[in-house]
């Protein structure tokens, strides 16, 4: 039986570091993928494929550079390759969006600073708006399903969701401003 090839420990250490960075920033990569696919399942596929590519190309990453930008550049290619979502942006739109991300929206601070604020603001939403958010994100129901469940029109649910998210964003912006950390939007 031939001897199996063993992984070089130096290479393995570099791979582990890159994977640690991925774990740390995966919320940003997932948000990026979700934005460009508009589909939870497709975004999960993109994140998974990105992780594998990041692992394979770990030696290409330069530690002094922005990991999230590097990972999102890979994720952008995975979005273009993905065929799972029913509706897809054209490649030109994907490229245009990927090139114009405001730094504050997908940086590492995305989860570190804002998630507690988001949870606090969720608590302050009116009950009906909170129920909509629960159905949409925690139960992963589409607006059509929510409308059927609540006996409302799909258009009404869309509008209510838009208002609920705007309220959340305003709340978080106010909290960030109050903490002296700048506005969220």
């Amino acid at each position, binding site marked *: 039986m031939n001897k199996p090839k063993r*992984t070089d420990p130096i290479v393995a250490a570099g791979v*582990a570091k890159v994977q640690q960075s991925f774990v*740390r920033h*995966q919320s940003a990569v997932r948000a990026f993928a979700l934005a460009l696919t508009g589909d939870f399942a497709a975004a999960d596929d993109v994140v998974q494929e990105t992780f594998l590519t990041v692992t394979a190309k770990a030696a290409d990453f330069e530690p002094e550079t922005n990991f999230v930008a590097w990972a999102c550049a890979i994720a952008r290619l995975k979005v273009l390759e993905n065929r799972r979502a029913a509706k897809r*942006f054209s490649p030109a739109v994907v490229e245009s969006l990927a090139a114009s991300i405001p730094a504050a929206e997908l940086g590492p601070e995305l989860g570190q600073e804002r998630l507690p604020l*988001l949870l606090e603001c969720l608590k302050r939403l009116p009950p009906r708006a*909170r129920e909509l958010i629960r159905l949409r994100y925690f139960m992963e129901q589409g607006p059509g399903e929510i409308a059927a469940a609540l006996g409302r029109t799909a258009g009404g649910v*869309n509008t209510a969701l838009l208002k609920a998210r705007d309220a*959340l964003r305003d709340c978080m912006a106010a909290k960030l401003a109050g903490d002296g950390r700048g506005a969220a939007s």
Partner: protein
Amino acid sequence: MNDRTNHLIDAWLDGTIDDLELAELEVALLESLDVRHEFWRRASLHGMLHEAAKIESAAGKSPDAAAGGPGFESPAPRAFRGSWLRGGVAASMVFLLLGGCGIGSVATSLAFAYAGLRGPTRPAIVVHEEGFERPPAPEQRHVPDRLDVWGGDESVVVGPEHGIAPQSGARMLKFLSARPAAANYEGYASEIWRIIDLESVRVAAGSRDVRIDFSAWFNGCPGQGEPRQCWISAIATDTHPRDLGHDWRVQFQAAQKNPGGVATAQARERIDTDPATWQRFSVTVTAPPGARYLLLHCLTEYRPGQDDDVADRCGQYVDDIDVAVSVAQPAVVTATVHDRLDKHDERHGHGKHGKHDMEVRR
């Protein structure tokens, strides 16, 4: 930003956009940097809500229960029904998201190394390689009570000796006895174990099943009587290692009571009598919903009396232990092998035969 644009962006993010609206949104995005920035602002909140839902739902909480408000009494969301992300994982992810400094305790528990792709949809990642080339040597205190160390019966890392060379590299592990260093009983099996935290695998797996391939190479001198029996086992379990105690066989009992939480696979065979050849044992197990830990087990048969002075002569050896994970394809159910390990117990008068499924490759 006007209401129409916001409506189009939200319709995209909610998956309700129609073809005409998509075309309208694409034009707006291509023409205006402001629209693109607004898109990212709305997408950012959308992503955060999705992330918060994943984390809190995995922890069994609703959004405002996590924030200290009145909780929702609701089942897990669609994406996490049957998932094997659990509260501990979620807590760690929250820690990562909130603190960003817990990487060492979360991600480095698995030493990932890329192993290439086996196919377009079933990539394999090596999560553990052990060639005994570098310290630490296995501890000699029975089943480890913590992650990512080998532990078990008395053993020693050696170089080539008595006509046996390592399977690869310069070192291999030699089994010395059938009991931990401080124990005083007569055993019939020399064993080592290792517990791996599967948490980081979830990064690659999402909510899909995870296939685990575990292999090890054995060699040894024949001694008297029948060739020696060796085996390896892999146990995917939802039980934390600190709760394993010293009787890991409880996991097999747990498998009978809770087949959704534990899966095991085992390969066992007598090795040949030629010290010049190594034999590879391998098993495959699919981590079931809830499986957070992986217990690895390598064993060689020990013969009291005959093996008492094995430290000074040729014995039984293991080398090049590998564990790789791959993500199951969507909608493909991989069989889970359950093995009650009763053969071992029966051999020593502790039990009776159980179902015995194995895969042995040479």
